[in-house]
């Protein structure tokens, strides 16, 4: 029986590697940014999976749904969720600025291909 977390970890690592390959080899800048997004996605899944507890429940106390300590015993780890919250927002901010930079560059060059740009090799 393959465990859930094994599947998730493998998926996340594959995503990171795919995104990394894309970010390093793509010539089109938009595709590079998309690859960066894929890397972020993989990393976020990885972080969330760290908090995985078998048959865990959401870490929110519900009034009237049984005693609080019983609820607490089955909660999944809330910390990775907090970390991912921050990481997603930060990744979004970076992507926004990157796309704006690319848009400005496109305006001046009429292309988003890196092979056209001088010295923009990795």
């Amino acid at each position, binding site marked *: 029986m393959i*465990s*859930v*977390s*094994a599947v998730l*970890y*493998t998926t996340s*690592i594959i995503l990171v*590697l795919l995104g*990394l*390959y894309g970010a*390093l*080899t793509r010539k089109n800048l938009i595709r590079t940014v998309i690859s960066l997004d894929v890397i972020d996605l993989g990393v976020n899944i990885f972080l969330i999976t760290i*908090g995985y*507890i*078998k048959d865990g429940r*959401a*870490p*929110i*106390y*519900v*009034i009237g749904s049984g005693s*609080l300590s019983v609820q*607490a015993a089955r*909660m999944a*780890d*809330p*910390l*990775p*969720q*907090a970390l991912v*919250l*921050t990481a997603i*927002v*930060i990744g*979004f*901010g*970076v992507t*926004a*600025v990157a*796309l*704006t*930079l690319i*848009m*400005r560059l496109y*305006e*001046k060059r009429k292309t988003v291909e890196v092979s056209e740009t001088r010295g923009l*090799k*990795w």
Partner: protein
Amino acid sequence: MRKVIGFLLIASFAFFIVSLVARDLWIDDPAQVRTIGQAAIGQTIPQSGAANTVTAIVVQFRGLDTLGEVTVLFLSAIGVALLSGEFAGRGLNELFADDGGFILHYGTRLVLPLIALVGAYIVAHGHLSPGGGFPGGVLIATAVFAVLMTNVQQRLSTRLMAVIEGLAGLAFVGLGTLGLLGDKFSFLANVLPKGELGFLFSAGIIPLIYAAVGTKVAAELSTLVTSLTGSDKDAGPASVSAGGKGGAR
């Protein structure tokens, strides 16, 4: 050539990771390390009065991270507004052939308050149910975005958004400084009464901070979208020359 190098790099990297830790990661329940997440579950109600553990962590236990996160969004909004330069005021009609037509035009305006309301609800109930300032703020900004996308003549004032942003940010820092002034002498301490668990007005400064965060996020995302779609009311009309002149660097 680049692809070959890239592939080799990735392959060796993958091998490195897998050989070192993969086996350990694939176990479902590793030797249970007592994590601070578990401590947080226990400490949430006594220390913060919130029912949502994640919110307690995000806003209180690790409040500085949230301040940092909000700052990163602030940075992105400034960056996009700064770098949009000429096309911020240009208007969507250069990018799209036609706008959405009657249904989209008025439909989005009809739906905007509803979406904003749902967003506000999510922001306000951050300490009681999943959600909080960030998703709620995004939702409110989505409403704005819907209107902007379907009404090509619509303009939004980034100046107004900047004012809202700045005020909300100051509110966050101000709430944090309250902690410094009180007897606890600690930035971002939860100094207001905790109230009763499960009520809207509980959990001290947490709802207030999330309200500030939600407002800020909504304003920032609206600025982002406004600059990128060229709907800025405050940017001048685009200049004819697309190339920037060089200055001293």
